[in-house]
């Protein structure tokens, strides 16, 4: 299944990755970024049927002076509705995000 994801940080992290349930890294924060780069888009494929929940893991780390902050992950899986989840963290964050497909949706 093809998925477009958008990761939006309220504050620029020092490290961040998006991983699949099997630990495969789907996206990581590029080295050539600036402090102003807060929104990232990436497209990837995962192997699963459209009636299963989608499990993704977001990991992020911020500098010590960063206040409690948020990261929003929006996904657009082919044939399924757009969904988003917001997680909060301070210093570092490792969050399992589960997206449900919804029974009324069909390809």
């Amino acid at each position, binding site marked *: 299944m*093809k998925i*477009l994801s958008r990761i939006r940080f309220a504050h620029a992290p020092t490290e961040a990755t998006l991983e699949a349930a099997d630990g495969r890294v789907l996206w990581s924060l590029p080295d050539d970024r600036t402090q102003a780069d807060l929104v990232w888009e990436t497209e990837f494929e995962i192997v699963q049927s459209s009636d299963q929940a989608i499990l993704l893991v977001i990991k992020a780390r911020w500098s010590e002076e960063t206040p409690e902050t948020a990261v929003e992950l929006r996904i*657009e899986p*082919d*044939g*399924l*509705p*757009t969904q988003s989840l917001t997680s909060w963290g301070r210093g570092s964050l490792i969050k399992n995000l589960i997206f449900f497909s919804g029974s*009324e*949706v*069909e*390809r």
Partner: protein
Amino acid sequence: MKKILSAPAGYFLGMINPRLFSCMMAIMALATGAAQARLKVATLHPLLSDLAQNVGGESVEVVSLLKPGGDPHSFDPSPGDMAKVSDARLILASGKGLEIFLPRLAQTLPPGQEIFEVGKRLPSLRVEVGELFICCPAHSAGGIDPHWWHSIDNMRRAARYLADEFTRVDPGNSAFYRANAAAYGKRLEALKAWAEQELRPIPRDARILATSHAAFTYFCREFGFRALPVQGLARESEPTPSYLRETIQTLKKNRVRAVFPEHIGNPKVLASISEESGAKLGRPLIADGTGPGSSVTFEGMIRHNVSTIAEALR
């Protein structure tokens, strides 16, 4: 090119002024080259023309096969229509079963021409009583609503899918198509924020969208409404007297504030339902991207529909 400058005409021009003739030839060659470089696409739905123009910009020539004011539910392109777009690289269709003639059409395409169903990768919603429908016409129950363009999120995604498709057939302009789709996507995010703000004053119990045909499922899903259509997925037939009675009772029971006719279609049934149920008759909605006598843009359609619904229900 050959038709414009036949040998005698070219010779005649050359006789008058050879330098001017050479110059004209060069300009025409450039113009023709530019025209040939444009990706030609034909569309089966006016909103797809708008989308293709937004994504393709000046690199794409868009030809709409459905005439202004036409009904995409009953439209079936004639061999003459298709002959006019025989040099188009792509035929853009909505998909989700709207164009039932697609398999037949696919067999008659000239070599190199392909159909791209823009809605194919978008989520589908079914017409069934539940979270999204208060009641629905029995003959459409269980069917997939093909009107995916009533979701702004869907149109934003469709722009991306179309940019992918344009890139596949015209890779040289990939960056241009993707940049256009991204810019259009940003405009649509702003449009959605505006729509949410406009609809916010409508109380939760008044969020029932009673419309002529079952075209607004995606709108209801996106903006927290429930649908109550009088006809089915297409404008195939007048509702039966028993269904009308049931609809009027449902409208009364749910204290529905307004019923909305459409720009296309017979408004008499809705007018009589409005009178019987006490729900006021709202201004017509645009269901299929075609207004009275002219095509509309997607943004224009959304702004019209949102304003009309907000005005009647808040």
